C-alpha cells in the first residue's frame, strides 16, 4: 500500500504565511497563558494532595466535600474531580506549623459522610523546599535540553540548521504547553503543571527534533546530489521525498498516543495528550518552521534569491 507516491507539492511557496501564522499563534498563546496564570501541581508549589474515592448509595458533589473540609477546619482546600465521578482530589496548601495527615482528613470525611465508604487512592505531600527545587530543576531541564539539542544539530549539520531546529523546537514546546493549558481550563483532561507535564514536554522536545532531523538529513543528501538545483526546489524535493515516512511515523505515534489518552487512565492521560499535540506540531514545524527558517535566513539576511541560487552557488559565494 502506498499513499504518497511521487508527490510534488510545493511546500515552501506558502511558507511566509504559515511562518507568520505560527508566530502569531505563539504570541497569542503566550499572552493568554500569562494572563490566565498557570495551574501548578503540588510538585512545584508544595502542598498536600489526597485522592479519595467515595462508594455509597448516593452521588457526592464537589461542594459537599468542600463544605466538609471547611467544617473540619481544613481551610483553603481545593477540590477537583479525578477520573470517574465520586473520585476527588483534595488539595491543601503548605501552612507553617500545620501538618495534615491523611488519616486526619479521612477521619473528618468519614464523619461527614457516614453513608459512604471511603477509599484512600493516594496522598502526595511536597514540602515547600522540595517544591521550589523541582520548579527550578524543571526550568533547568528545559533550558539544558534546548541548548544540547541545538549544539548537537549544529554539530551534525550546520549552525544555521541548528538554529532552525531550535526555533522549531521552541515553537512546538510553546504550542504544546499552550494547548495543554487551554484544554486543562476547559476541564476535559487534568493537565496541571507538574512533573508529569515536564516529562511530557521534554519528550516532545526530544521527539519533535526527530522529524526535523529526517528532513535535514534528506536536505544534506540532496544538496550534494542535486548541486545545481535551485535551493527552494531542492528543499521542496527533500520534503516530498520524506513525506511518506513523516506521515506514517506521525500516524503510528498519534495512534499509540490516542489509545493511551483514552484508555490509559488519569495518571497517563495528561502525559499522552501533551505528547500527542507535540507530535503533530512537531511534524508541522519541521516543514514550516525549521526548513522555512533556514530558507528565510538565506533569503532575507544573506539576500540570496533562492529560486535561482543552488547549494553549490551559495557555498561558493559564502567562501568568497
Amino acid at each position, binding site marked *: *500500500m*502506498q499513499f504518497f*507516491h511521487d508527490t510534488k507539492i510545493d511546500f515552501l511557496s506558502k511558507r511566509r504565511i504559515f511562518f507568520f501564522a505560527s508566530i502569531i499563534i505563539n504570541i497569542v498563546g503566550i499572552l493568554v497563558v500569562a494572563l490566565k496564570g498557570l495551574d501548578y501541581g503540588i510538585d512545584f508549589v508544595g502542598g498536600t494532595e489526597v*485522592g479519595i*474515592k467515595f462508594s455509597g448509595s448516593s452521588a457526592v458533589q464537589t461542594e459537599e466535600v468542600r463544605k466538609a473540609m471547611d467544617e473540619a477546619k481544613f481551610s483553603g482546600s481545593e477540590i477537583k474531580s479525578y477520573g470517574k465521578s465520586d473520585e476527588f482530589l483534595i488539595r491543601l496548601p503548605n501552612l507553617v506549623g500545620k501538618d495534615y*495527615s491523611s*488519616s486526619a482528613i479521612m477521619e473528618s470525611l468519614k464523619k461527614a459522610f457516614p453513608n459512604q465508604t471511603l*477509599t*484512600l*487512592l*493516594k*496522598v*502526595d*505531600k*511536597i*514540602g515547600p523546599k*522540595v517544591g*521550589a*527545587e*523541582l520548579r527550578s*530543576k*524543571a526550568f*533547568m*531541564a528545559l533550558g*539544558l*535540553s534546548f541548548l*544540547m*539539542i541545538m549544539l*548537537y*544539530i549544529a554539530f*551534525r549539520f550546520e549552525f544555521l540548521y541548528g538554529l532552525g531546529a531550535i526555533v522549531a523546537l521552541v515553537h512546538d514546546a510553546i504550542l504544546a504547553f499552550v494547548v495543554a493549558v487551554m484544554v486543562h481550563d476547559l476541564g476535559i483532561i487534568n493537565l496541571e503543571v507538574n*512533573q508529569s507535564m*515536564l*516529562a511530557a514536554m*521534554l*519528550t516532545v*522536545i*526530544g521527539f519533535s*527534533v526527530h522529524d526535523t*532531523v*529526517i528532513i535535514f*538529513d*534528506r536536505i544534506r543528501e540532496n544538496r550534494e546530489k542535486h548541486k545545481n538545483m535551485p535551493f527552494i526546489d531542492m528543499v521542496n524535493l527533500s520534503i516530498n521525498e520524506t513525506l511518506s*515516512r513523516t506521515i*506514517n*511515523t506521525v*500516524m*503510528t*505515534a498519534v*495512534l*499509540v498516543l490516542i489509545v*493511551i489518552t*483514552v*484508555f*490509559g*487512565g488519569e*495518571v*497517563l492521560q495528561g*502525559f*499522552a495528550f501533551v505528547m500527542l499535540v507535540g507530535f503533530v506540531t512537531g511534524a508541522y514545524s519541521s516543514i514550516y518552521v525549521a526548513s522555512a527558517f533556514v530558507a528565510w535566513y538565506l533569503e532575507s539576511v544573506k539576500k540570496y534569491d533562492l529560486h535561482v541560487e543552488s547549494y553549490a552557488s551559495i557555498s561558493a559565494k559564502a567562501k568568497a
Partner: protein
Amino acid sequence: MTLKKGLLGKWLIIVLPLLAAGLLLFPTFRASQLEKQRLELVKAKNETALAAFDKENGETLRKNKEQSLKLGLDLRGGIYVTLEADVIRLLEESAMRDAVDDVFLETLEKTRQQVDAGGDDDVLPVFLKNFDAIARPKGRKLFSYFDAGSNRDLSEDAIVKRLERNINEAIDQAIEVVRQRIDKYGVAETTIQKQGTRRIVIELPGVNNEAEVRSLLQTTARLEFKLVRNNAQIVRTFYAIDQLLKNKGVDASASTTATAATASTATTTAASTATASAGSADSAKKDPYAGLTDDQKREKFKKDYPFTSMFVTYFNPPGEGQQPIPVIYEKNEFPEGDYSFQIPDESVQKFEEIMARADVRRIMGTEYQAIISAKPEPFFERQGVKLYYIYGVLAKPELTGDVISDATATFDPTNNAPMVMMDMNADGSASWARITGANIKKRIAIVLDDRVYSAPTVQNKITGGRSQITGSSTIDEARLLEIVLKAGALKAPVKIVEERVIGPSLGEDSIRKGIISGAIAALLVVLFMILYYATAGVLADLAVLVNITIIIAVLAAFAGTLTLPGIAGLILTLGMAVDTNILVFERIREELHHGRSLRAAVDEGFKRAFNAILDSNITTMITGAILYYLGTGPIRGFAVTLMIGIVITLFTGITLSKVFFELILSRGATTFNLGQPASEKA
C-alpha cells in the same frame, strides 16, 4: 545443508539476544510462580505446609526476587518518602553547650535561611562562609564553639574536618538506623538510598499507614534519664527570665490563640491571687490591679509576667495531705522545696520559643533544663482541657539510650495501659543501680526527644537493669516506640520533605489501564504495519517484539523498577522502533523504485537511513538523560525505560532487521513485498 559461516553469525545475532533475554527474565518468572504457590498456602492457613514450603523454597524465592523486575510504587501501592537530615541542628548540637551565644545562633539562622531557599547545597561551606562574615569580625573563632575533641590540634582546619566527618557519619548512621527501623517494622523489598549530601530516599511498597511511617522515620529517639529538680533554684531562674523579658518588652500574649479557657483561667486565678496577695502584702503599696476589668487585669498580668504568665506554678508544701499553693513571681523570694508547673497546650510553642532564645539560655545556664511532658495530663484531658507539666531537670543525663539492649511493647499489668519495658546492658544496669540507689524518694525523668514521658519516684534501688516508659496511648504507639528504641537514636534529626502514598486500589487500576492501553496500541500498530508494508511489516513487527522483550529483560537484569511512566516509555519506544523500520522500508522502496536490485536496495536503504536514525535517536537520548538527572521517582523510571529503549531500538532496528533481510536474501530472493505498487516489484 551446510551453514555458511556468515549465515551462522546472522542466526546467532537473532538467537543469542533472545536467549539472554530469556535467561534474564527467568528469575522474575520463577519468583512469581513460587509467590503464587506460597500465597495459596497462606490463604489455606496451613501452618505446617507453609513452614515446609519456606524451608524448601525460601532461599530460591529470595534469590530470584532479587533478580526480578520490580513493580514501581505507583503500580503496587506503597509509600515513597524523602528524608532530609537537619544538618544545621546537628551543627548546633555539636557545639559546646555553654559556648552557644547570639552570634553563633545568628550565623546558624542565616545559614538556615540560605539553605532552605536553595537546593541540596552542602551545608557546611555555607555555614563557614556565614561564620566568616558574621562571627569572625566579632572576634570569634571556630574553637570558641567547637571543641577539638581529644586531639590537641586547635587549628581551624582540624575542626572543619572533624565537623565534616561528623556530618557524613551522622547521615550514614541515619541511613543505617532507618534501615533497622524499617526492617523491624516488617516491610519487605524496601529501597533506601542516599540522595545528594543529606537526603535519604525511601520506598516502602505495600505500606499505606502514613501516620505510622512518619512517626517511625522522624523520631530522633534520643533517650535520656535525667534527675528531676523542681526546686526553688528553677523558680528563681524563671523569675529572672520574667524580668529579662519584661525589660525587653517581650509580649507573651502573642502566643495564646483566641480564648484559651485554661490559659485565661490560669491567668485569672493568678491575677486574682496577685490582687489578693498584693492586697495582703505591704499595705503601703498601691494595688496595681485595682479598678481594672478582668480583661485588663489579664493583659496587665501578661505584661508584668511575660514568661511566667504562660503557666501556673504551685508550691507543694512538705507533709501529707497539704494543698499545693499557687506561686506568684512578684518578688524574688521563694521557699525551698518541691514545685510543680502546669502549662496549657496553646502556650507550649511560645514557651519553647522563649527557651530557645540566646539571652534566656544564658540565664538558664547549663546546669538545669526545663522540659515539657510528652502527653497531656490524663485527668484534665478527659475534661477536654489539655494541660502539660513542665519539669526542671539536671541538664546532664545520668544515663542515655545507648545502654538499652532491648525494648518490648507490652501492657502494664496494674492498669492495662500500653507501655514499653526496657532492658539495659551490663554497664547500664550497674549505673542504673547506682543512680537509683542514690536518689531514693526522688524523681527521675525519662526523656525521649526532649519530652518527658514519665518522671516516676524511685522507690528502691533497681539492680536488674529494667525500666519502663509509660504513657503510650495505644499498643501500636508503644510498638513504634519499641522499634525506634531498639534500632537506636538518630544522630541528626530528620524531616520528611517529600512524601507520596499510592493506595493499593489505584495501583491495581493503573496496571490494568497501562496494560490494556499498551495492548491495544500494540495491536493497532502491528495491524498498520502489515497493512502498509506487507511482508516487511511482519518482519518489523517481529523486530519490535524482540525489542520490547529485550528491554524488559535488561530492566530485570538491573533489578530495575517498572513504573507507570515506565510503561508509557515502553509504549512510546514501540512507536519509535516502528519509526526506525519505517525509515528503512521507505528508503528501500525508493531505491527499488529507482530500479535497483533487491540486494542493492536493501543495502542502500539501511545505509542511507542510518544517519537519520542515529541523529534522531541521540537527540531523544539527550532529553532522556536530562530527565533522569533532574527528575525524581516515577519520572526517572520513564527516563530509564526511554534510554534503554533507544539503545535496544538502535540494535533491533538496524542490526536485527538487516539480519532478517540478509537471511531472506541468502535464500536467493530477488523480490520482496514491501507493500509497494505492483509495477515496481523488480
